[in-house]
């Protein structure tokens, strides 16, 4: 199955952009990756099993492109969050603190934490999307949670 490119972009553009952003930490790079990811979908003649398969494929493609950017010698520097993230008056200050903490994690932890907590991906799905072993996902998730707890203290719960 396939869904039209317009529908795919409408449904998954923000997810793909955020997945790329939380890996490469630069909005311009994330926008480039997002556009290139949907171009890859448009150009591909791949037949998907389900819409969930399409979503996973888009996230995997975006993550791979972001990893390539992270490896490039000339990648752009990361931007301070305050450059484009404005906290509304009624918004808890802990949101910005939380984002800063996640963005300060090592890249592998960051990717796992984002896919687990934002995309609600299972350990198995994360392993497929990132192309790593399930045990590696578990250890990165554990490491990420530990680091977030250290940084955020009571603002990060002990739940699994």
């Amino acid at each position, binding site marked *: 199955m396939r869904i039209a490119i317009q529908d795919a972009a409408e449904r998954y553009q923000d997810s793909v952009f955020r997945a790329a952003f939380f890996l490469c930490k630069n909005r311009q790079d*994330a926008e480039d990756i*997002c556009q290139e990811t949907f171009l890859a979908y448009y150009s591909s003649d791949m037949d998907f099993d389900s819409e969930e398969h399409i979503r996973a494929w888009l996230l995997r493609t975006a993550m*791979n492109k972001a990893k390539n950017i992270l490896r490039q*010698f000339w990648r752009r520097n990361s931007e301070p969050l305050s450059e484009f993230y404005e906290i509304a008056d009624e918004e808890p200050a802990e*949101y910005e603190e939380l984002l800063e903490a*996640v963005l300060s994690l090592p890249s592998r932890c960051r990717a796992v934490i984002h896919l*687990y*907590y934002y995309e609600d991906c299972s350990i198995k799905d994360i392993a497929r999307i990132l192309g790593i072993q399930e045990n590696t996902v578990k250890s990165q998730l554990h490491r990420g949670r530990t680091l977030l707890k250290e940084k955020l203290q009571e603002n990060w*719960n002990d739940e699994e």
Partner: protein
Amino acid sequence: MMKNSEKYKQAASRITPSANMNVMNYIEEKETKRMMKTPVLRRALAVCMSLLFAIGLGFTAYAADFGGIRRPIDLWLHGSMDQVTIEEAGDGQYHVTYSDGSVRSVGGFAYEGDAARDLTEDEIISLLLTQTEVEKDENGSYWLYLRDHKIDITESLLKQGYAQEKMQDGFLADFITVVLHDEDSWGIMTDHFGFPSPEEVRDNTR
């Protein structure tokens, strides 16, 4: 009390693309370019190149007037020498402007003992001159670029999952191993004394 996932979702939802990003426009532009007939495209590129040469001269004048802020240098791009300008942008970053108008932000660190420092302009130029690149073109072919070398590595990559090339045009040879992680992702490692193993490249670049 709000769960971690709820809190994180609410916070991360505030990160949005800029108003400039438009996926459908981007795809439409790329598709239009792809459908242009090759001779027309070549002619258009030739015209663009002559115009860009004039702009390049302007950059040189700018550099002379303002104490060498922009420095013209020759760098390899896709197997050919290209005249680019390198400009210090502050915070250890440099902007490299290629003759096709594309701009790359460049930066890096060097470690001296435990202390990190920004790379100097000369160090960055030296790295750019020896940078190995792999690109996938619109036909699905994978090209390896190093200096004036341009090698099609598609067959090896697709057949065995990796490609190895030795290049010797200087005192030390470059042994390059490229591993395909998947169709849009690859890892590259270079050594002067033998090929890095595909497993090593896979483990270190994924």
